[in-house]
């Protein structure tokens, strides 16, 4: 096979992330501009300007992250500070307990701020771990296919036969409550979607000219997968990751709500809602406000996810 050197060069530049390339030569197999590191982020942000929802969502997420990271400096009280004399103080904006207190007189605002830590950490860690495992295995399975692919695909079929929440509840009943157990249970099934997506994408990219060109240049399989194919499929993976982060956070709080998530000593929104259930009649704020914090965060993440999807990967749009 003869390879046009100039063409190869332009392809390489494309996948290595220089923005000097032009779009003069139409390249079959490449429908999108490949990921090119941090330089792309400004481009994405620029394109998101037409998605006000995503921008608002981004700022909301930023606010939550700041709260989670600097919780000890932001929270007016310690999350575990019991004050039995001040039980069930109703929320009054501007008072020392702006969102009221719970059955032990603990400040709800402070507990919500600390609760952001668990939710955000679980969301980020589970998505990151699932993504690394799923994409890694997906690259290998899609690139080599063969028996590894067959075995993996059967295994993922099996995992997909379990509804997610039921799988995680079952796993947590075996593992017992705990932060790392929760991460393990969520990731055990979480990687499957990333695996499926990246496998399918690799298979569609494998026959592209730029992959053949890289092979002709004698690049190793590993190098082709990581530095040629991955940058071309990362967009849809990132979109999926963002959309899944909201799901993971909802699942974490659902488990904490059932008492199967993080241990009760760590403030988490789900368990706060669950605690507040007993006092719904007299103190509505104990159960509802932590849930509201959760809804706003998940809404913000989904808004960003949808915006990113429209910008990066319009094919994923429901149709």
């Amino acid at each position: 096979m003869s390879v046009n050197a100039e063409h190869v060069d332009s392809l390489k530049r494309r996948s290595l992330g220089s923005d000097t390339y032009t779009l003069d030569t139409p390249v079959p197999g490449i429908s999108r501009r490949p990921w090119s590191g941090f330089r792309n982020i400004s481009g994405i942000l620029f394109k998101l300007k037409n998605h006000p929802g995503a921008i608002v969502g981004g700022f909301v997420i930023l606010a939550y992250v700041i709260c989670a990271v600097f919780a000890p400096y932001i929270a007016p009280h310690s999350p575990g500070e019991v004050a039995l004399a001040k039980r069930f103080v109703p929320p009054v904006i501007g008072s020392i307990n702006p969102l009221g207190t719970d059955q032990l007189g603990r400040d709800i605002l402070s507990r919500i701020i600390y609760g952001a830590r668990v939710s955000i950490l679980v969301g980020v860690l589970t998505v990151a771990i699932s993504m690394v495992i799923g994409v890694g295995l997906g690259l290998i399975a899609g690139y080599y296919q063969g028996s590894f692919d067959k075995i993996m695909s059967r295994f993922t079929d099996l995992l997909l036969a379990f509804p997610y929440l039921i799988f995680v509840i079952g796993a947590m009943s075996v593992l017992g409550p705990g932060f790392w157990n929760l991460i393990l249970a969520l990731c055990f099934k979480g990687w499957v979607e990333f695996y499926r997506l990246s496998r399918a994408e690799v298979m569609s990219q494998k026959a592209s000219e730029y992959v053949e060109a890289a092979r002709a240049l004698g690049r190793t399989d590993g190098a082709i997968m990581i530095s040629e194919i991955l940058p071309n499929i990362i967009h849809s993976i990132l979109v999926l990751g963002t959309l899944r982060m909201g799901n993971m956070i909802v699942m974490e709080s659902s488990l904490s709500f059932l008492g199967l998530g993080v241990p009760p000593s760590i403030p988490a929104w789900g368990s706060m809602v669950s605690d507040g259930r007993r006092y719904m009649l007299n103190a509505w704020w104990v159960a509802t406000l932590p849930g509201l914090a959760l809804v706003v965060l998940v809404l913000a993440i989904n808004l960003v996810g949808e915006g990113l999807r429209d910008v990066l990967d319009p094919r994923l749009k429901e149709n």
Partner: protein
Amino acid sequence: MTRTQVQIIERILAAIPIMLGVVILAFLFMRMIPGDPVDIMMGEAGGVTHEEMASLRAQFDLDKSLPVQLVLYLGRLFKGDMGYSLQRARPVKEIILEAVPATVELALFSLLFALILGIPLGIASARYQNSIVDRIGMATSFLGISMPGFWLGIIGIIVFSLGLGWLPTSGRITYGMAPKSITGLMTLDALITANTGALKDALRYLALPAVTMGAGVAAVVARVTRSSMLEALKTDYVLFAKAKGVPDRTVTIKHALRNALIPTVTVVGLQVGTLLGGNMIVETIFGWPGLGRIVVDAIFSRDYPLVQAAVMVYALTFVVINLATDIFYTYLNPKMTL
């Protein structure tokens, strides 16, 4: 045999190894418990002799090797024996069969709510794209997708039960109102026995849990119906029908909707997984005496045989419903290769 029939049979055959895999995974589940399950299960009971522990171990086949355990397990399962719940001192199968009607009834009403709300909302949003109806509808469904069931349920209880006093907070029917049990579905039994009082009462108890569980599904259904309707409304046959002078309403319902509903069917099938998962949460919140609440209780009382069997039942149901969706889909759209 037609091509469609062949496809359907292939699909059924492909589901068999998956189901077997589910059963094996459920079997492994109890063996993955760190430590000795009998120790853990009996740990809280106290006062159990070593001999009793040993006989319990023998009862769970824990004294045999793993492959032998698996064969024995599969053999018993084949005969319909799902194990024995120590905590409830009853066969697991009985407990599960007793709880299934309540769960099925709740799931059916949730699905009904989701379809009745989601499909018209999706159609209206597509028909009047970018109108105020569309914008409000889509914003609401976006909210519905992001809202966790347990929070929605609690808001419902605070507003409609505790605040307005319209609906009961928990349970399935007022004590003493239950109709004669025929199918186990309260509403159906009330209809059969023409007991309108019981029917009204059962519906009042169903309203909040069904809406809580169905809200997320309704949101997804609305979004999918909208986008597939938008596509269908742009097709040539719709344009042609309009050009012929067919009334707008007829075009929307007869020409566009019939084709647009195919993706909706698939999505509803997939959403059953969400319904099954949400089931545990919603039943816990509303004290609904179904399978979900039993599982949650069983987890906390470390009743592993019951948890194991219930997880298996959930997963098998999910596989069967996905299979049914696939088959239904093939019938709706014979062009589609499975």
